[in-house]
């Protein structure tokens, strides 16, 4: 829940909190992102593009789950939906802008319809309704073979580099992903930092408090879910740019679960965490495959557990954990950082108690 608010009034800003350092870092990052695709190998470019795709999907999931606290196990469905719409639009030679808009809006409408019903329920019931999306989505995609190409799926290669740019296809695709994904990230960041983000946080924290403050939990849950679906649709469009092929397998339940895992591993309710989640989602299977294909699942599970064991707050909490560790080893006589008591079953953890009762209350 701790929002990374930086208050500039603080007397002792550490160096990376100064505004000019942040702007400089941003400029450097932009330059790197513009130059890098031209220098890197085709394989690296494609990997980064895939990371971009799934980072956007994880970002969408973060809006509904990380920021608003509604467990969604169906995010992959919206990615798949967006991908199918894109593929269908491209095969039928729609205008590409129109295709993009429909690929975003159609999943958003689907998400809105699901949310209108699901948000009436609390806690785990939402999870169950959203679990249904990939579970039912796969046979449904096979059934509607006129639109989806059945089990064989659809493949389209529409994002070829135009002549004038002089770029290779992989570079062009990476630029597209970076621009569309970057805009999505920027918009989402503004959303969750502003009025809506605060409303989401209250709904996540305590629904009764939210309604007493005039914030309708129902309305904001529906909103968060719709936005998550919209972002899912964007990631589906990007998916077709990069992977150029979709089949019922795209929206399988296993992938949806992995997205949730990636979100928590990256860092819940965090923009940077969403990117880290995307990196995790793409790189870890690649890594484990490279080590030994027969051990993939075993290693993935082990890595997931190991990361969460060390960093229950996700990868994004790594710097915080490091500083805390350093502070503790440096000044053992100083005031000890408070929230480091190991969880004990008998202790009356007042902070941890609230979400638990909340959850049981809605189930």
């Amino acid at each position, binding site marked *: 829940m701790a929002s990374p608010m930086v208050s500039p009034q603080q007397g002792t800003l550490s160096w990376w909190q100064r505004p000019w350092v942040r702007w400089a870092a941003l400029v450097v990052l932009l330059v790197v992102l513009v130059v890098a695709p031209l220098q890197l190998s085709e394989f690296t470019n494609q990997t980064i593009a895939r990371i971009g795709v799934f980072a956007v999907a994880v970002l969408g999931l973060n809006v509904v789950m990380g920021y608003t606290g509604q467990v969604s196990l169906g995010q992959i469905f919206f990615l798949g939906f967006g991908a199918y719409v894109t593929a269908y639009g491209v095969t039928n030679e729609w205008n590409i802008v129109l295709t993009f808009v429909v690929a975003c809006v159609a999943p958003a409408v689907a998400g809105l319809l699901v949310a209108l019903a699901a948000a009436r329920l609390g806690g785990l019931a939402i999870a169950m309704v959203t679990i*249904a999306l990939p579970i039912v989505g796969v*046979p449904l995609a096979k059934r509607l073979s006129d639109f989806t190409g059945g089990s064989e799926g659809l493949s389209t290669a529409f994002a070829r580099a135009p002549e004038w740019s002089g770029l290779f296809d992989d570079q062009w695709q990476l630029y597209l992903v970076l621009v569309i994904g970057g805009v999505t990230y920027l918009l989402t960041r503004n959303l969750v930092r502003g009025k809506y983000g605060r409303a989401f946080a209250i709904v996540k924290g305590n629904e009764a408090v939210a309604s007493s403050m005039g914030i309708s939990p129902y309305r904001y849950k529906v909103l968060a879910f719709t936005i998550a679906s919209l972002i899912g649709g964007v990631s589906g469009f990007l998916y077709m740019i990069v992977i150029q092929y979709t089949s019922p397998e795209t929206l399988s339940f296993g992938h949806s679960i992995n997205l949730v895992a990636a979100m928590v591993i990256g860092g819940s309710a965090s923009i940077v965490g969403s990117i880290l989640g995307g990196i995790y989602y793409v790189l870890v299977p690649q890594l484990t495959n490279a080590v030994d294909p027969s051990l993939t699942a075993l290693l993935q599970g082990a890595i997931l557990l190991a990361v969460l064991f060390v960093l229950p707050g996700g990868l994004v909490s790594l710097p915080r954990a490091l500083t805390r560790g350093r502070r503790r080893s440096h000044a053992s006589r100083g005031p000890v950082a408070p929230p480091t008591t190991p969880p004990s079953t008998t202790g009356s953890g007042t902070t941890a108690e609230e979400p638990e009762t909340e959850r049981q209350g*809605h189930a």
Partner: protein
Amino acid sequence: MGKFVQLVVDGLSTGSIYGAIALAIVLVNQATGLINFAQGGMAVLSAYVAWWQTTHGVPIVVAILVSILFSFALGAVVERWLMRRFERGDPDTAVVVTIGLLTLITGLCGWLWTYNNQQFPSLFPLGTVSFLGVSISIRSIGTTLVIIVAMLLLQGLFIGTKLGLALRAVAINPQSAAFSGLPVGRLLMVGWGLAAALGAVAGALVAPQLTLTPGMLDNALVYALAAVILGGLTSPVGVVVAAWIIGVLENLAAVYVDVIGFDLKVAVPFILIFVVLIVRPQGLFGRKTVVRV
């Protein structure tokens, strides 16, 4: 008519499997407030343990009993050394830890015993019995009966013994239970162990039918979760009844409703959930819980 009865009995048998896993999920949820996605995976691991013994000449009944004991220990160990660290933290993290555990166990089974289907010997003969002119498979009846017996035993444990009383106390309020001197940590281990043991029974019963693979119970887990929500998290009996309803309805819908068919029968429990939850958000048999602000 004969087909109908056969479908209903088969539905009850698969429903029993879902019910057993659902009950295991409820046991864990009541004790620790989280949903264990690895419940099915742990059951598969214990089924593999039983199968591995049979390949070494151990009789099937003994093998299954040993695997149930193994599962109990596994559940307790997982609670103590893995889940306890996350039980008081963010519930989303705890859920993802169980997802990681599921992946780990699936990978472990695949690595040790390959991803190929293994033939698991059946506990029951494969024939059918004729009853009032309807033939019903012995396996379906046997599966249903064994699960019912297991549940009655569990119910007896919870209601009739001191251990059961302590377990219920921990589930209702861990802090008060700790204050009155109950070893909460150890009781949580027992709770997880019992849940895993129940899952092991389900795994051993369903393995001959589905043939043993690391992902054998992935689908069953989804149905079990559906049953949990449909029945209501607070009602063990309701969960089992919901699982039977799901098993039977799904079978009937697949055969008698053309639009659904065998490929979309998985949608049935979710349509059911959707309708039920709109009317009764606490589930069919659950109690409405009140949140203190």
